[in-house]
């Protein structure tokens, strides 16, 4: 049949025609072509081709070819690909458009903030890590440092506890001193010890300077690393208004397993048979439940306006951060205002200021965590009539009820500057920075009587006022020269700084009324008034410095940086007032070399090496002086106290800077147009002349137990850092993945040989007379020291078979006879671990598909130990952790848990209380939804994002406690859990709108 076949063909052609008519009617213009790399000529697959003004697009295939239907021949196509400069090409009636894309040079021309200036990322020879401000907002916390955890290789951030508003402990590349090991914070050119006054949303970027080359310009204070924070400034473009609101709840992540009522009663019956004959009628109280709030709210509200006109740029922001704690009567509220403006009255002159004003109120938590941990579960909180029941050892609900402790105050900080450019290449900047703070702490203890050990017969009020006045004046002159093959930058500077502080404490008893309105010194008994300076206050210290730096780049391949700083500090005696800190670094951009030009996958390869010396002067300023102190005598009949003055311990006028000599070798790499990029570093830091208190010979006359500070100790920190990142885009889907890690090998290499003694420092006090850490040559700082537990003595035979302490009985811990002398004595104590982790790591990923984005950051630590101080401090019959269910009894002889006792052998410092401090946690998970532009344009809104966020969503660690993050600012006594405030999981919902 011929007709059907012809008919079929006819239909086919018509359909085709119809189809093409249909196509022509809707999409008139087909464009095809190939996209290639401008330099290599190779085809580029995966390039996004977008029809401008629509959401229509396609992607180039493996040969770089694409095919897209435009609406009209006058449309434009946008070609974009990661690592390449985006091109927008008008179609102009062409059906075939081949284009080339060039590698995005601006990425490599990206600038990085370094000390006293900025530098092109490609020119940097030091070890500097940059974090964008936006990434920091992923963690809901009062202190921006909290968000850096697990984000920067070599920076270890540990919480001290979950207390609202508390500063985390920040350590960069290990611990290089026995004293204050915190890094230097530089915010808008002003120096701080902590940045808890700063609103995270005001931060543009954070740079962490890790090696000597980058920190030496800060000379005297760079030994622990430097963190530079740049806050937001007005950017080009229209006025930008942003509003943000975030609201959520905090909950306890993980409870501590304690004995419940019946278990505790049975244990007591074991010790004292017959104490509780009817266990069922006893109350069964879960004290953690009673004390901790289920849900504690957390809120963050933000408004910022920034804009620019010809001569003026402004950035104004206001923020309210309100966090209630999961422990009652603990909270942190902070209100801040930021004003970053700059003015250009003349073409060569720029003036500006970056100011922050903050008001804060902090309710300090009652010390109720350790009470709830110990309280008898067979006691109820209240009696039948509603009074507080006299719980053993104390009633936690009463502790909360009678607790009043609040900090509140104002703080303002920032700087004013003037910058002039002249003779084209010169730039002179003078800036005056300041930090003023007033903080008042009020503690009121009312009269109460819950039990003979929990009572207060007389009320008292204590008020402490802290006043801080710091200023810094910096003057720098920059010279920049650009020639075809050479780029030279010179810097010379002079700075002066003064830090002044005073703290006064007032105390009075017997207030006539207990209402807060009467918490005033007019309301109490004048004869009980105490007025005194707190600690070393008042004190003033000053610093005066000269700094120089040279940056030189040759042929974009060979880099040199050298700097020198001279610092004079009032904290040191005349003999050693000045410290000199040089540094030098070299860099080689291998990727620019001809011999690597064929290796097209390689987009960046830079080798850098640096060496330098930096100092630490964070000590109290008095140690150099021989002070004369008041010591009264009693004379006369009748006897009277008579004023007298006599020398205190001798000062050390030879005190000087602690010095850290730091070497670093690093490799920066990038492949596939920097889709794969990262860094590898090895660092080696030797800190010497560390200030350490040492005993002096008795005939020097300083008195029993007195120690004088000497520069006598040495510490070494070394390790590796690595980061690996991958990011890519496929159409509407873009993602990035990152992995980073760092190792620390910390060891004390010298200790006090100057006066021939003191092979170790003892610290790590648990508060009950026991000390559990030591610091000595050959070991990490503050390592745990005690007996090593081998097991439990099962019975008398076991006792006879192994050395033991005199009063040991079956069921007691078996300590290792370390020195093999057949006896257990103080010499058998040994090293039990260190709180400094061997490895800190982080893993993050970000996904974005059309309007939805998901990002997460995991972080963890390995190879550290902590001391379970809460379990080790026992002074009476108190509740136990749940492992005591399996304790040794005559019926349960094979176990690793010793018998129930209150003191003695089983509570000596030993490995029983040393636990693995490793953890792995999902620090933050954010799921966001960006409302599509169509919905927003009518309202005049530019961007709107709704998000759901979780912080500390889950944690993995092997320890019966709230957390293994129990860091402390005291480097000799860190990693000890004495009843730490739990770190909560935080879940929030937020909305960000931009106009």
């Amino acid at each position, binding site marked *: 049949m011929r007709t059907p076949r012809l008919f079929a063909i006819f239909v086919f052609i018509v359909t085709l025609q119809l189809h093409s008519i249909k196509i022509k009617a809707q999409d008139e213009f087909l464009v095809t072509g190939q996209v290639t790399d401008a330099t290599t000529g190779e085809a580029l697959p995966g390039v996004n081709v977008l029809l401008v003004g629509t959401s229509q697009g396609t992607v180039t295939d493996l040969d770089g070819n694409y095919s897209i239907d435009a609406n009209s021949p006058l449309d434009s196509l946008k070609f974009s690909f990661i690592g390449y400069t985006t091109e927008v090409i008008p179609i102009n009636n062409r059906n075939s458009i081949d284009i080339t894309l060039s590698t995005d040079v601006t990425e490599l021309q990206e600038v990085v903030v370094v000390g006293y200036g900025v530098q092109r990322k490609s020119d940097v020879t030091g070890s500097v890590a940059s974090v964008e401000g936006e990434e920091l907002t992923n963690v809901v916390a009062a202190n921006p440092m909290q968000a850096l955890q697990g984000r920067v290789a070599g920076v270890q951030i540990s919480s001290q506890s979950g207390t609202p508003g508390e500063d985390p402990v920040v350590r960069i590349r290990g611990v290089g001193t026995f004293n204050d090991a915190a890094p230097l914070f530089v915010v808008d050119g002003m120096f701080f010890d902590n940045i808890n006054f700063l609103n995270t949303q005001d931060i543009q970027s954070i740079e962490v300077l890790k090696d000597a080359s980058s920190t030496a310009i800060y000379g005297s204070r760079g030994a622990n690393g430097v963190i530079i924070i740049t806050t937001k400034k007005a950017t080009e473009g229209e006025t930008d208004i942003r509003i943000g609101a975030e609201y959520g709840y905090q909950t306890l992540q993980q409870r501590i397993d304690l004995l419940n009522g019946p278990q505790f009663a049975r244990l007591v019956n074991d010790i004292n048979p017959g104490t509780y004959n009817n266990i069922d009628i006893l109350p069964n109280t879960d004290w953690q439940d009673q004390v901790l709030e289920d849900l504690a709210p957390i809120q963050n509200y933000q408004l910022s306006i920034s804009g620019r006109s010809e001569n003026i740029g402004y950035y104004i922001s206001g923020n309210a951060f309100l966090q209630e704690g999961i422990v009652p009567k603990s909270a942190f509220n902070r209100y801040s205002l930021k004003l970053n403006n700059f003015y250009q009255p003349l073409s060569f002159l720029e003036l500006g200021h970056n100011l922050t004003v903050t008001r804060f109120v902090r309710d300090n938590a009652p010390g109720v965590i350790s009470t709830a941990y110990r309280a008898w579960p067979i006691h109820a909180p209240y009696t039948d009539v509603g009074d507080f029941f006299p719980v053993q050892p104390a009633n936690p609900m009463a502790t909360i009820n009678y607790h009043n402790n609040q900090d509140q105050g104002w703080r303002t900080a920032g700087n004013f500057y003037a910058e002039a450019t002249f003779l084209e290449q010169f730039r002179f900047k003078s800036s005056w920075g300041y930090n003023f703070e007033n903080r008042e702490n009020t503690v009121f203890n009312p009269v109460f009587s819950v039990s003979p050990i929990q009572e207060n017969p007389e009320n008292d009020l204590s008020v402490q006022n802290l006043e801080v006045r710091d200023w810094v004046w910096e003057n720098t002159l920059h010279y920049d020269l650009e020639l075809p093959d050479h780029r030279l930058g010179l810097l010379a500077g002079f700075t*002066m700084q003064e830090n002044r502080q005073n703290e006064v404490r007032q105390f009075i008893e017997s207030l006539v009324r207990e209402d807060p309105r009467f918490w005033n010194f007019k309301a109490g008994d004048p004869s009980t008034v105490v007025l005194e*300076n707190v600690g*070393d206050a*008042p*004190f*003033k*210290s*000053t610093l*005066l410095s000269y700094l120089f730096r040279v940056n030189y780049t040759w042929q974009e391949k060979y880099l040199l940086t050298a700097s020198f700083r001279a610092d*004079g*500090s*009032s*904290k040191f005696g005349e003999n050693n*007032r000045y410290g000199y800190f040089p540094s030098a670094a070299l860099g080689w951009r291998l990727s620019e070399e001809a011999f690597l030009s064929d290796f097209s996958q390689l987009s960046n390869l830079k080798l850098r090496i640096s060496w330098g010396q930096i100092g630490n002067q964070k000590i109290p*300023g*008095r140690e150099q*002086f*021989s*002070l*004369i*102190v*008041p*010591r*009264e*005598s*009693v*004379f*006369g*009949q009748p*006897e*009277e*106290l*008579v*004023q*007298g*003055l*006599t*020398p205190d311990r*001798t*000062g050390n006028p030879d005190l000087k800077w602690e010095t850290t000599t730091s070497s670093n070798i690093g490799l920066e790499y990038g492949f596939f147009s920097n889709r794969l990029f990262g860094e590898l570093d090895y660092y080696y830091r030797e800190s010497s002349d560390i200030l350490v208190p040492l*005993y*002096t*010979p*008795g*005939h*020097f*006359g*300083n*008195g*029993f*137990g007195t120690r004088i500070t000497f520069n006598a100790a040495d510490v070494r920190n070394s390790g590796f850092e690595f980061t690996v990142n991958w990011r890519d885009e496929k159409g509407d889907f873009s993602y990035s993945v990152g992995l980073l890690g760092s190792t620390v090998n910390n060891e004390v290499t010298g200790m006090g040989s100057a*006066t*021939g*003694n003191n092979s170790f420092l003892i610290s790590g006090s648990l508060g009950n007379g026991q000390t559990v850490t030591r610091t000595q040559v050959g070991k990490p700082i503050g390592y745990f020291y005690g007996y090593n537990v081998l097991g439990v003595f099962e019975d008398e035979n076991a006792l006879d078979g192994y050395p033991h302490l005199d009063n040991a009985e079956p069921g007691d811990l078996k300590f290792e006879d370390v020195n093999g002398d057949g006896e257990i004595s103080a010499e058998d104590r040994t090293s039990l671990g260190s709180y400094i982790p061997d490895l800190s790591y982080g893993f993050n990923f970000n996904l974005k598909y059309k309007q939805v984005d998901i990002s997460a950051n995991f972080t963890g630590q390995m190879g550290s130990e902590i001391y379970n101080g809460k379990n080790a401090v026992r002074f009476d019959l108190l509740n136990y952790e749940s492992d005591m269910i399996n304790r040794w009894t005559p019926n349960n002889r094979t176990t690793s848990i010793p018998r129930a006792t209150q003191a003695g052998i089983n509570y000596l410092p030993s490995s029983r209380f040393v636990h693995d401090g490793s953890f792995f946690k999902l620090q933050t998970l954010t799921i966001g939804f960006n409302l599509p532009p169509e919905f927003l344009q009518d309202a005049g809104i530019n961007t709107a994002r709704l998000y759901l966020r979780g912080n500390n969503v889950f944690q993995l660690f092997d320890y019966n406690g709230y957390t293994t993050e129990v860091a402390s600012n005291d480097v000799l006594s860190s990693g000890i859990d004495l009843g730490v405030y739990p770190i909560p999981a935080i879940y929030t919902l937020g909305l960000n709108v931009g106009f």
Partner: protein
Amino acid sequence: MKKHIIFGFTILLSLGACEEDFLENPPEGQLTNAVFPVTVQDAILATNGAYNILRDWRFNSGGFPMFDIMSDDAKKGSNPGDAAPIQLFEDFDYDASSGNIHGYYTTLYEVIRKSNFVINQVPAIQMDQDLQSRLIGEALFIRALAYFRLTNAFGDVIIVTNNENVSLSFERNPRSEVRSLIIEDLQFAIDNLPEKSEYPESELGRATKGAARALLAKNYLWMENYEMAAQYALEVINSGQYTLDPAYGNVFSKSGEFGPGSIFETGALPFSSPDRGGNQYANTQGVRGTPNRGWGFNRPSWDLIQFYRSRNDPREDETIIYLGEVLDGVTILGDPTTPDTTYEDGIIVQVETYNEKVWVPGTTSEEQWEHNVRIIRYADILLVAAEALTQLGRTEEALTYLNMVRERARSNNEETLPDITTTNQEELLDIILAERRAELAMEGERFFDLVRTGRAAEVLGPLGYQENQHDILPIPQNEIDLSGGELAQNQGW
């Protein structure tokens, strides 16, 4: 152009000058040794400051009265399990690692440092010469007292006369040199200090001419220079400044503070804090339990009790507190965890007693902090005179002074403690030694009396005393470690 250069140069110079000032920051509100002492007021304050350390807990034999506990006068005290390190002194089981010995050593050198400060700094001050010499004399007395205790306890010790440049060699000066220094210091003190009566009442407690003479006499007695010991003891006696309080019990009481027989005494106020004037000396030995006056250490021994009873000595009552006694209206019940009587093989070895010489009327432990420590008493000097004179063969004179002490002790009780009449040297020396024990029990003298008269091995041997070892304390092990092994240890240790 030239103007610019000069201008710039001036700026640089002035920058340099203000740079130095900018970096000078002495602590606010506090003096340093760079600016003190400067005025006459400073001189007085510095001297007052040197007395303060005499109220330090460790000034008295490292905190616990270890010399009494080592002697036959006293036992450790408190309950059996308390303060095990102190038990070691009672049993002569202690060694160089003792914290109490280290505390005694370092505190005595602290006294020396504070007095050196006055001795070396005050001479440069423009002030009235008499006052200046007096203040320096006071400091020299305090320094001599410290060296006296140091060398008695430790033998050869390092001499430090200026703490601004202490020698870094750890060589110990022989005892004879230390004794010479004491003599030299006290000579100046004697020449420049006023007599006790020449001080206004408000200054009682300061060093006096009599105190310096008395200490010098004791020093000479140690050196066995009986000629000089007798001379200076007699100077004290003949000065007319001191008499014996007719009631022995009154000597140590609150009403007897700075009494007629007080040659050198440290005042104290009833506060449990040295900063407010308190001294923990009496609290350490206070009655333990009910009333709660203190820790109960330094317990009068059964041997001492037997000794008193064998002589029918009225001083027993004023020296020893027994359970059941009523003192100033307070009934002494003692410590429930201490056995009232301890037996060994059926014989009494210890009875729960307390040192009555540190009793302060009252019921709290804080009130005990008010007790004044009697460092040198007139009765002691009378017996020093008696001993020295006896050694010189001047026994008639010796008897006079010996009997003055016995007469006061006897008081109204004619039947006991009759006057001694024998002129036999050996007999008299034994009697005087016994009299010293009866008169000065629990005052830290007995142990040293036995050692310097060579009787220690005989009397204390049964208690564990080893000849050629326990006559002096070991140099603290911590000090030897600190010196890197350079500091030599005492023989026998």
